[in-house]
């Protein structure tokens, strides 16, 4: 029984890793005021790029690099359309999701059922890995997990305590004021969007290089949508995003654990979205109007 719990928790953390990476990226993007609903698409593209390149080269680094590039490029498209052409961000993001899922499906078709020759192996951190239970859970993971944790903390620090971070938040809160202080609003927003997309690509890479290493169609399986919900759930704070990612990762895993016991998996699959709604509801019920920490200019195109 203890073994089952530990293995479930271990899988929880693995499932949470891609959510963590994606959420950190989406927080970065949304903090600059751009809403990118294309996470599912960007993760799919990151996954297929990561899979194809790793399959051909047998080199994980190249695969990860390709995923970053694919996610970033897809986000650049969204950034161009929303930041420079100033189109509706919701429409563009939804389109990007569909485009990404479709394109990944087509590109990945020849690889269905194929297995990668290599995978991201779990690395044990010396000493810390020896701690009973905790060591196995937290210090016996793949490099992207460690990277994701570091990136989440770094993003939190970056947004809060650096000059550039403050400017990114300002652009997302009040682009006009930022512009009047000489901040190039469009450049900031575009770069944050591309950066967030690269994170999503990385999240997609984690799905194929660590979580499951054979290609099936729709391998990302809605994780991108969970990320969109998680970003709200986290109230745009990367640290809260980290907690949420593993919480939602747990729900993702329990679907499979509880299924044999007769719990319908669809019910559990619904939970992350339900939890997001509850957070929105609780926040909305609070009297203080400013409690929802959504960037004030989120989703609004800015032109002088």
């Amino acid at each position: 029984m203890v073994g089952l719990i530990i293995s479930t928790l271990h899988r929880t953390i693995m499932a949470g890793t891609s959510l963590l990476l994606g959420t950190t990226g989406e927080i970065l993007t949304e903090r600059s005021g751009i809403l990118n609903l294309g996470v599912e698409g960007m993760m799919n593209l990151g996954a297929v790029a990561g899979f194809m390149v790793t399959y051909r080269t047998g080199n994980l680094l190249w695969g990860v690099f390709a995923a970053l590039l694919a996610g970033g490029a897809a986000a650049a498209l969204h950034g161009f359309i929303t930041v420079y052409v100033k189109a509706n961000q919701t429409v563009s993001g939804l389109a990007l999701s569909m485009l990404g899922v479709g394109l990944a499906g087509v590109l990945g078709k020849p690889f269905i059922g194929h297995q990668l020759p290599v995978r991201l192996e779990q690395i044990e951190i010396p000493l810390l890995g020896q701690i009973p239970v905790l060591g196995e859970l937290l210090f016996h993971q793949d490099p992207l997990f460690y990277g994701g944790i570091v990136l989440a903390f770094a993003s939190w620090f970056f947004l809060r305590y650096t000059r550039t971070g403050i400017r990114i938040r300002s652009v997302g809160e009040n682009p006009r004021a930022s512009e009047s202080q000489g901040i190039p609003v469009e450049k900031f927003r575009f770069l944050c969007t591309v950066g967030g997309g690269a994170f999503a690509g990385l999240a997609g890479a984690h799905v194929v290089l660590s979580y499951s290493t054979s290609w099936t169609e729709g391998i990302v399986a809605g994780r991108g949508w969970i990320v969109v919900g998680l970003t709200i759930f986290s109230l745009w704070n990367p640290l809260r995003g980290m907690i949420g990612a593993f919480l939602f990762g747990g729900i993702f895993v329990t679907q499979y654990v509880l299924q044999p016991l007769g719990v319908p998996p669809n019910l559990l699959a619904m939970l992350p979205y339900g939890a997001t709604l509850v957070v929105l509801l609780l926040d909305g019920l609070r009297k203080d109007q400013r409690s929802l920490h959504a960037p004030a200019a989120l989703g609004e195109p800015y032109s002088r």
Partner: protein
Amino acid sequence: MAGKSLLKKIQTVQMEKISKYFQGVAANRNIDLTIRGGEILGLLGENGAGKTTLMNILYGLYRPDGGRILIDGVEATFRSPRDAIRAGIGMVHQHFMLVQNHTVVENIVLGDGEAPFLFPQRAVEQKLLKFQELYGLKVPPYARVWQLSAGEQQRVEIVKALMQGADLLILDEPTSVLTPLESRDLFSILRRMAGEGHGVVIISHKLEEILDLCHRVVVLRKGEVVGEADTKGVTKEELARMMVGRSVVFSFDWKPAPKGEVVLQVEGITVRSDRGTVAVKNVDLSVHRREIVGIAGVAGNGQRELVEAITGLRKVESGRIRILGKDITNQSARVIHAEGVAHIPEERIRFGTVPNLLIYENAVLKRHHFAPFSDVLFLDYSEIKSHAVDLVEQFTVAAPSIRVPMKHLSGGNIQKLIVGREVSAGPALLVASHPTYGLDVGATEYIRKQLLKRREEGEAVLLVSEDLEEILELSDRIAVMFEGHIVGILNRQEATIEQIGLLMGGVRS
């Protein structure tokens, strides 16, 4: 940086033959303007005269279509505000350019090119504290901007500009959001800055404050310089004539009139603010036919909540409101409007119009669903358009056509259209909130005349304003609000500015 501004100062800024066009319309035409260090220059003009455009060019927000800028004789090109900031020019906009959810120091970091990459907050806080000693400009470093009063927010803006090394400070309508006391503080700060060699430019249309504060005044009209004067050798009337291009009436022909039956009857209402606190406490008030009742008070003492309760925009917790005897308490705004209450709202652009709709569509808001503007199913556009043409003519709204979006009109013209729309509905009660706030002399005069005309025609007007002269000039009776109570109701004959001022400060006689 503070240190730098003490050493180097801009001696002169020259703007030569500056022209700027928006969609073919000249906002500035061949403007020459010289600003000297150590001088407070007033830039006077009506709304739409091109004052703000000219200063936005100097601040690098707009690029001029013609002309050039010389700083100490050297030509300067500003591609963005960043270039202007580097050249030592700072600007405090009319609508503050602050991030409301951020702290004061975070707002300063935003534009501070010298803030360190890591932990800029701390460095800026240190600088801020030094600065406070130097200039006596106190601002709480870690308060969030939305928690600050308008006066404090303005101080943050000034500190921000000075910390970026502004030798020349431009202020756009700086007193429009301040209480009289805060204005006085601001003026002493500006005088001190000028005394230290800073150049200061004040954009304003308030004649008194220009005469009081500035050394020199330049008057703009329709995008051109129409006059320039030393403030010592010029009178208010002369300036007003330059600004408007004709003589302006400063006092109105107010005739006593016997008041008629009660139109608005407010009985002991209590209303809560957005924050949930009680903003209006057990208030009684009545307005009769052929009467203007003015409500005076410092902003935030419940005036807004009272008006919103009467017009159906806010829930009344207890008490009753009647219009011509009919109970309208907690009815919807639509029902109340249909019962004969018209409303000129406080924030005219946000609540008075739909900026993206065309003028003729805005002209029938709130009545679009009634005959003759619509039948059972469809809007009657020919009726709507001819109504809009009538309004534009009758209320002298300067608009290129009734087919342009409302947002293209200037503030004064937007307000004229709103007044026309509300008055043309033939209301029993007209509620006017700060109807001339931010308007130029010409438009202000016009709007006040319209309010008096309502009274002469035998209708009731409830006027809320922070402009005491306006209240005194127009009202039959003056009610003063303080902390949610009406602390005194004075008749026109017995009211003096001093007395109202005391009541506004909560001193009961």
